[in-house]
Structures are given as structure tokens and as C-alpha cells.
């Protein structure tokens, strides 16, 4: 492997106003090694993030195509296009893909790209672990799709209720592959959450105190904490489902003291926070886009942060609202009704603060802002149906009907996917150095907005008219025919919109206008460096004095009267040295030496994949599979003499 050449006694350091020798050294230090091995061994956060974003988007398209086939089947009553077995696989794969392989991972992927640039640093924390998280995610997703294309896709829903998903009613390995896909993707998400928390807490530019970090960073920090407490629940659930199916445990077998409802509690304790894991990053995107296109800082920063935190806490207290039709104590259900309604309040705070910001700003109606406006319409409508569903008596009528399908798509697509598209248009110039086409962007937006409402609004009415969910067909003459047809037409329009997006993204790579450093005139740090950023992100790390560093500019004079610092200097340019700062005040604290590119994250991910795959078939895989994992992890951790020599040359005791 082509390591950057450095000797223990090198003295090249970074800083403002340095010459091309330091810049060349920084480039050589931080870029990926060349060739295929270099690509596989890369640990630069931008490299990992780019492939992560592309992969999650690929799953988005796959999930969308699955839904498209479902809509074709449902366009007419009694259609024979798709039989029940395939249809049940389609909706299971659609839900599982969107929830596990797209919605949460894409947010983490975008965060991995943006956070170091926004925080003014050169890397995420734990870059090798970050790479491992990508590989594990990729292998889990691939496994699921390979199994589906082999005709053995899981077919009991993304929520996989027992006893249907248990050994008696789901023979074969379909459900086991689903359950193990959970293990892969949850491991990836948990690892990324640790990366995000540590990056936000410890790797900020000097002067970026916690109350100066962008609201997007707050949203991702809160999301990461939620992941730590929510995902173990689905891990426990899916693992005990596998043991019920593989080695005869009885967690969900009522005949031997188990309980089908235990599954529901464990699944929804994860499942409800899961939708907020998807929603909160969307809120973060909006808080990044609005200030730039309203030309003013966000109104109510503190209230926004507190709202994010309140939403996260409340999200853990709602899960039983997915179980209102189960015979649980009624008094308990009322508590969950109240909590499910009250969680609207912190979201309302955010919405009103955004409107206040727009109201008092000067608006630049570019595509990112259009998608944000689409959010307002769609998410708020979805929030209203959410309030309806929060009430037990109302829910008992529309639960498990197409009304809920409408609701969930309004809140998830409105609350997360529209902001995500806004974010793509917003940050595409930074990632690629080119602008996307505004014209195609407007077409993209309007087709998506119209197609979405055409596809999903009729579903409210279908649910009220008695159409349940997860049905591969329906009979003619029930009053459902026209609404289903309209919905399918909407799906076609959405597909066109997605196609336009792909065309725009691909064409703009070569033909888009050159973006320059800050095409939107934004205020946060990622816009202070080139587009695309150099491998080291910043040739000199900026020192920050406010929430909108680029708008406020470096101060001439700091608190206390001394001239203010503008940039950091003194980090090594010929080895990956990163500045760690203190958690609250971002005072410079440590010079941490970060690892060079290495193949061990990929090898470890392969070893873990082997264990996970093997344990679908035999419990002994857990024992034998641990051995290659132990070897790979040991090799990952074991320091090389050359590395240690470099560290020692730069070492200073605390």
C-alpha cells in the first residue's frame, strides 16, 4: 500500500499562509491510496460517505420499484399480475428496504460526509469503525436482495409479527434472513451513532462551543443518542426470533409460557423511536437550508435544540399506540394517547420557528427551499392524521387500514424524504463541485409533490372505506376501485420524478455549472473550503466565533481585548493528526493521531458477515465464526512498529 511518506523526525505542520509544500503534504496524507486495494482500504470520511450515500440511494430506488409493482397490482380489483406469495414478499421487502436499508442509513451517510466539514475538522472519530459500518451495512443489504432474487424473500412484513413469523407458520429460512438483516443493519447504525456522538462532542473547531454548533449537528447528535437506546430492542427481538426458529427457545410460543405480544412490545419499543430516527435528521436538513435561503440566522435556536431533545425523549414513550387493538389495560392506553398527542408540541415549536424565520427573511426560491416548502404541506398534513391515530377509539377504526399507510407516508416522505432531496440539491455542489440544474430541479419537485399527493391522499379515503393493509388484491364493487387507480397513477408520477432526479444528478456531474466555494452564500463552515473539499477538508482549521462563522466573519478582537485567533496551526501535515477539543467550550485539548487507510475494517466485516450468515443455519457458527472475527479485530487493533514510531515522535504526555 502506498502510504504517505513520512519520517519520525518530520516537522511539516499545517496552518494559515503555509506554502504549497504543506498543502501537498496534507493532500498526500489524507487522500485514499490508489488502485482497487486503496479503494477497499479507504478510511477518509468523505470516501466512505460518498459510497454510503450512493448505496443507500440504490436501495431507495429498489424499494421504490418494489412499491411500483405493488401499485400496478392494486390498480385494478382482482388483478392477477402478482400472486399473494410474491406480493407478500414485495411489501415485506419494500418496508424493510425503506426502513432499514434507506431511511436511517442515508441520514447517517450524509452526516458522515458533512459533520467534519461543518465542525471544522479533518475526520470523523473512529474512521476505521466508520468504514466497517459501511461494509457491514452493504453486506446485510446485499444478503437480503440476493435471497429475494432467489425467490426466498421474507414475506411476513417488515414488522414480522409472531406467531406468523415463528417456526410453525413461516417454514424455511425466509424469516431468518430478514431477522439477520436486522442484525447487520442495526450493528452498522449503532456503530455510526457512536462515531457521530464522539465527533460532535470531541472534534469541533476551537471556539465552536456547544451552543454554536449548527442545528443539523444537534439533530444528528440527538438522533445518535436515540439510536443507542432504541436499536438494542430490535436486536433483542430479532435474535430471540432466530433462537425460537433455530434452537427451540419459546419466547413467543404461548403453549410454553411465551407471549406473542412480547414481540410487539420489543419491536415497537424500537419501532416508534425508529420513525423519529428518520424524522429528526429531516428537521436538521430544514434548519440548515432555511437560514441560507432566508438570508438570516434561524429564529429561536435554543427553543429548536430543546424541541429536538424533547421529541427524542417523548418518542420513547409512544410505542403502545401501535398496539391499541391488543387487549391491554385501557388506562395504560390512555397514557399513550396523551403522549402521542403531546409529542406534536415540540414539533410545532420547530414549525413556528421556521415560519418566523421565513417571515422575517428575504427569500431565495431555489430548489432546496422548494423541497422545504413541500415538507411544510406534506408533513403537517401527516402530523394531523397522526393526531387522529393517537386517539384510541379513532385508531381502532383506522388501524391496519390504508389510512395508516397514508399517514406513515405523509410523515416519512414529507418529514424526511422531501428535506433529504432539498439537502441533495443543497450540498451536491459541495460534494461534486458542480451545481445541479435548477430547471430540472423544479420539475423534479413539482412532479414529486403532485405525484405524492395523488398516490397517497386517496389512501386516507380507502382506509375509511374499510380497505385493510397488506392485501394483495381486493374485490370489485367495494368502492375501492377508482381510488386505487388514482393512487397508482400517482405512483407513476413519483417514478418519473425520481427518474428526473437521477438524470439531473448524473448529467450535472459533467455539465453542471462550476460551484465555487460557497454558491449559496451560506454561513456554516462546510462552505469555507473548496468544492469538492480537499482530502484534508481544510488546509488550515478555522477558529470559530459564532453560530454562522462565514456570515459573522473572524472578529478582529476576541473577548478580553486580545486580537482574535482565526486559524489553528501546528498540526502535523505528513501524518493524520486531528485536533480534539473540550466537550462544552471547544478549547483545544489534544493532538490525536488518526489511523492510515487499512484493509482490516473490510476483512472484519467479511468475518462478521460469515458468522451472521452461518448462524442462520446452525448455532455452531457463533462459536466457530468468532475465531476469524477475533483474528481480524486483533490485527485491526495491533499497532505497527512504524506507526508507533511516528506516534512517539509526536508524543507529548498529558
Amino acid at each position, binding site marked *: 500500500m502506498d502510504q504517505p511518506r513520512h519520517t519520525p523526525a518530520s516537522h511539516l505542520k499545517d*496552518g494559515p499562509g503555509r506554502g504549497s509544500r504543506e498543502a501537498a503534504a496534507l493532500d498526500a496524507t489524507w487522500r485514499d491510496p490508489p488502485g482497487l486495494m486503496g479503494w477497499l482500504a479507504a478510511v477518509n470520511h468523505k470516501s466512505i460517505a460518498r459510497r454510503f450515500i450512493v448505496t443507500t440511494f440504490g436501495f431507495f430506488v429498489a424499494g421504490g420499484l418494489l412499491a411500483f409493482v405493488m401499485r400496478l397490482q392494486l390498480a385494478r380489483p382482482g388483478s392477477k399480475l402478482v400472486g399473494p406469495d410474491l406480493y407478500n414478499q414485495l411489501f415485506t421487502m419494500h418496508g424493510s428496504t425503506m426502513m432499514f436499508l434507506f431511511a436511517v442509513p442515508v441520514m447517517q451517510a450524509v452526516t458522515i460526509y458533512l459533520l467534519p466539514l461543518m465542525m471544522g475538522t479533518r475526520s470523523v472519530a473512529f474512521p476505521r469503525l466508520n468504514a466497517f459500518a459501511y461494509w457491514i451495512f452493504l453486506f446485510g443489504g446485499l444478503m437480503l436482495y440476493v435471497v429475494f432474487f432467489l425467490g426466498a424473500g421474507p414475506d411476513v412484513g417488515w414488522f414480522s409479527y409472531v406467531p406468523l413469523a415463528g417456526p410453525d407458520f413461516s417454514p424455511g429460512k425466509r424469516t431468518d434472513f430478514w431477522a439477520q438483516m436486522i442484525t447487520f443493519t442495526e450493528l452498522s447504525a449503532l456503530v455510526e451513532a*457512536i462515531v457521530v456522538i464522539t465527533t460532535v462532542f470531541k472534534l469541533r473547531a476551537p471556539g465552536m462551543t456547544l451552543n454554536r454548533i449548527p442545528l443539523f449537528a444537534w439533530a444528528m447528535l440527538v438522533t445518535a443518542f436515540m439510536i443507542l437506546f432504541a436499536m438494542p430492542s430490535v436486536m433483542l427481538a430479532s435474535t430471540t426470533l432466530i433462537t425460537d426458529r433455530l434452537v427451540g*427457545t419459546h419466547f413467543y410460543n404461548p403453549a*410454553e*409460557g411465551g407471549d406473542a405480544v412480547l414481540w410487539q412490545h420489543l419491536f415497537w419499543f424500537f419501532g416508534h423511536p425508529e420513525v423519529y430516527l428518520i424524522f429528526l435528521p429531516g428537521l436538521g436538513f430544514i434548519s440548515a437550508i432555511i437560514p441560507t435561503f432566508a438570508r438570516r440566522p434561524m429564529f429561536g435556536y435554543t427553543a429548536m435544540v430543546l424541541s429536538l431533545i424533547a421529541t427524542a425523549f417523548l418518542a420513547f414513550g409512544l410505542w403502545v399506540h401501535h398496539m391499541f387493538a391488543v387487549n391491554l389495560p385501557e388506562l395504560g392506553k390512555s397514557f399513550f394517547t396523551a403522549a402521542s398527542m403531546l409529542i406534536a408540541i415540540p414539533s410545532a415549536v420547530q414549525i413556528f420557528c421556521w415560519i418566523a424565520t421565513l417571515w422575517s427573511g428575504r427569500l431565495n426560491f431555489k430548489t432546496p427551499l422548494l423541497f422545504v416548502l413541500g415538507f411544510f404541506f406534506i408533513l403537517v398534513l401527516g402530523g394531523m392524521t397522526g393526531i387522529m391515530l393517537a386517539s384510541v377509539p379513532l385508531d381502532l377504526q383506522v388501524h391496519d387500514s390504508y389510512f395508516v399507510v397514508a399517514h406513515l407516508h405523509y410523515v416519512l416522505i414529507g418529514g424526511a424524504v422531501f428535506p433529504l432531496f432539498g439537502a441533495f440539491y443543497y450540498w451536491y455542489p459541495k460534494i461534486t463541485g458542480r451545481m445541479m440544474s435548477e430547471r430540472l430541479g423544479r420539475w423534479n419537485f413539482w412532479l414529486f409533490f403532485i405525484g405524492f399527493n395523488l398516490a397517497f391522499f386517496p389512501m386516507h379515503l380507502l382506509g375509511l372505506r374499510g380497505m385493510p393493509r397488506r392485501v394483495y388484491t381486493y374485490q370489485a364493487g367495494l368502492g375501492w376501485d377508482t381510488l386505487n387507480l388514482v393512487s397508482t397513477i400517482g405512483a407513476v408520477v413519483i417514478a418519473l420524478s425520481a427518474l428526473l432526479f437521477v438524470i439531473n444528478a448524473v448529467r450535472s456531474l459533467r455539465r453542471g455549472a462550476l460551484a465555487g466555494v460557497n454558491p449559496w452564500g451560506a454561513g456554516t463552515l462546510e462552505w469555507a473550503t473548496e468544492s469538492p473539499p480537499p482530502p484534508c477538508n481544510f488546509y488550515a482549521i478555522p477558529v470559530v466565533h459564532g453560530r454562522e462563522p462565514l456570515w459573522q466573519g473572524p472578529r478582529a478582537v476576541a473577548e478580553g481585548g486580545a486580537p482574535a485567533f482565526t486559524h489553528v*496551526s501546528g498540526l502535523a501535515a505528513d501524518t493524520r493528526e486531528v485536533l480534539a477539543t473540550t466537550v462544552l467550550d471547544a478549547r483545544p485539548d489534544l493532538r490525536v493521531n488518526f489511523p492510515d487507510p487499512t484493509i482490516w475494517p473490510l476483512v472484519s466485516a467479511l468475518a462478521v458477515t460469515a458468522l451472521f450468515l452461518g448462524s442462520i443455519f446452525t448455532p455452531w457458527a457463533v462459536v466457530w465464526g468468532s475465531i476469524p472475527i477475533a483474528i481480524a479485530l*486483533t490485527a485491526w487493533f495491533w499497532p*505497527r512498529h512504524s506507526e*508507533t514510531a511516528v506516534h512517539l515522535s509526536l*508524543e507529548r504526555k498529558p
Partner: protein
Amino acid sequence: MTTPRQLDVSGLPSYAFSHRSLMWWGTFGLIAIESTLFALAIGAYLYLRSQSDQWPLGAPPPDLLWGSTNTLLLLASLWPNHQAKSAAEAGDLPRTRVWLLVCLMFAVVFLVLRGFEFAALNTRWDSNAYGSVVWVLLGLHTVHLLTDTYDTAVLDVLLFTGPMEGQRFVDVSENAMYWYFVVFSWLPIYAVIYVVPRI
């Protein structure tokens, strides 16, 4: 345009202990995840118990001998663990090596006794829901014992063979923090497995 004014960080330390270290936050995140997992597993145990008239199901409670002995030993291991942590934070390589070796010996004894604990549960994972949840609870904690034993072994070997640098002392300190978690998380699990069936 303000002239650049440099904040020179070249004199900063290159490693530090506790929450100043990045890996401390990684360990903290892992502890948060595993604590949640244990809490949920305990929750599942108590839930299944609440759904049943009789508990334990079809078996006497687990024998107290091996579990209680292991608990006492786990608590006793906090002492060498603390010693290893202090030695590392003082940068004392010989003492760190020795105390880590003592920790490792404790860990091996725990694993052996844990094997006896499984045998003394008086139920199998596939007997019924009680057997399943008890085995999974004990199994989850055992996985942590196994991984911490392996971590400690690898670290100790590394301390003997080198290459050595200040960051390795930080690794020992964080390994010790994780060991505290393995011991303290055991206490509620012990209560649930051994005491709750007897109430």
C-alpha cells in the same frame, strides 16, 4: 479582511485519560448500548413472569452456589482492576502488566464458574419461555465476559511485547472502565436470575 492569527496547537498533549480520550466516548457508547440491552432482557423476563401463574415454569429456581460465588469473585476483581487502571494512569508499565495479568486470571476463573452456573440453572433454553429467557440473560452477560477476557488478554500481551506508546496506557484505563461495567451490570442480572424466582 482580518490578517490570519494562528492558534498554535503543536504543544498540546497527544493522549489523555478519561473523557478527554476519544475512545472513552466509544466505550461510553458501548456501555449505553449494552446497558439498554440488559435492561430490555430483564424487562422481557419480568414481563413473561407477569404473564404466568407459576414462576419459574416447570423447574426449581437456579442453584445459588456457583452464581453467588462468581458474584463475590466478580466484586473482588474490582480491586486488581482498579490497580491496573491506576498503574496505567501513572504510566507505570511493570505494575500495569502485572495487575492486568491478575485481572486476566480472575476472568478465566469467572468463565469456568460461569460454565457451572449454566449447568446449575435447572432448566434448558428449549424447555419453556422461562428457560429461554434465563439462558439468554445469562448468555448475554457471558458474551461480555468473553469479550472482555479476550480484550484484556490481547492488551496484556501487547504490553509485554510492545510496541509501546502512551496511548496504550489509555487503552488499559478504558478496558478497566469496561470491566467495571461488566461487574456492575451483573448485579441486577444476578438479582433477576437468582433472587426473583425465590420471592
